[in-house]
């Protein structure tokens, strides 16, 4: 918990983004790590509502090959 410095704010709330588009590769990438995993909200600082929307969007994006399910660049 050493990295919990300052208050984490939800970037979506901050920018008043209500709808997370599953076709928006940049947004989806921003919240997944190199392995393609969804970054947990304890790290990203997203609020529960936006994390939920984001998770749905990322999963949809995976189906449509906009982001990868997983990338092998691990191990």
């Amino acid at each position, binding site marked *: 918990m050493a990295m919990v410095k300052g208050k984490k704010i939800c970037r979506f709330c901050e920018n*008043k*983004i209500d709808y997370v*588009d599953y076709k928006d590769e940049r947004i989806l990438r*921003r919240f997944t790590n190199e392995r393609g995993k969804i970054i947990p909200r304890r790290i990203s600082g997203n609020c529960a509502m936006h994390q939920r929307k984001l998770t749905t969007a990322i999963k949809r994006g995976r*189906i449509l090959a906009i982001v990868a399910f997983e990338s092998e660049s691990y191990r």
Partner: protein
Amino acid sequence: MNLYETTFIINPQTDDATIDRHVREVADVINKGQGKIHHEDHMGTRRLAYEIQDLTQGYYASFIFEAPTSVLPKLQRHFKLNEYYLRYLTVRFEGNLEKLIRPAEEQAQSPKEKPAAPKDESDIDVGKGSEESLETAESPETEKIQTVETEAVEPEATDESETETPGDDAAEEQEL
């Protein structure tokens, strides 16, 4: 009548006219099923995040439409029957259609009339521009993430598997 969004990927290894025809076929299915298309987006050829049928690129297009539920199985069938659709996904559209159809102009005109709308309108700009704001915010974040990554790989893996519940859109999903 519900609002839906269908996004699909067409095999790009053909001429533009053929691709366009395949896009129109989808529109036809919607129209014939008494649906009404409100918004159409040809995103064009994009790189695929993973290979599909040995292809690295695909032609993306999407429709936002209002239609009776009976259209959905027809769409599904159309996509399944034609192998040039590499992927497709139809979901209930949850975004703001107004924003898509009438971009930003309103906010300048009537800031008082609909206080909420212009506010949202500017958001869309922010949404697009937000990349910068998100970007700038990211660099310190990535550092943090890496730190966490090394010391907490295990819990993170658990997190993911929890979130990774099947269900939601998996129904729409074709064999992967």
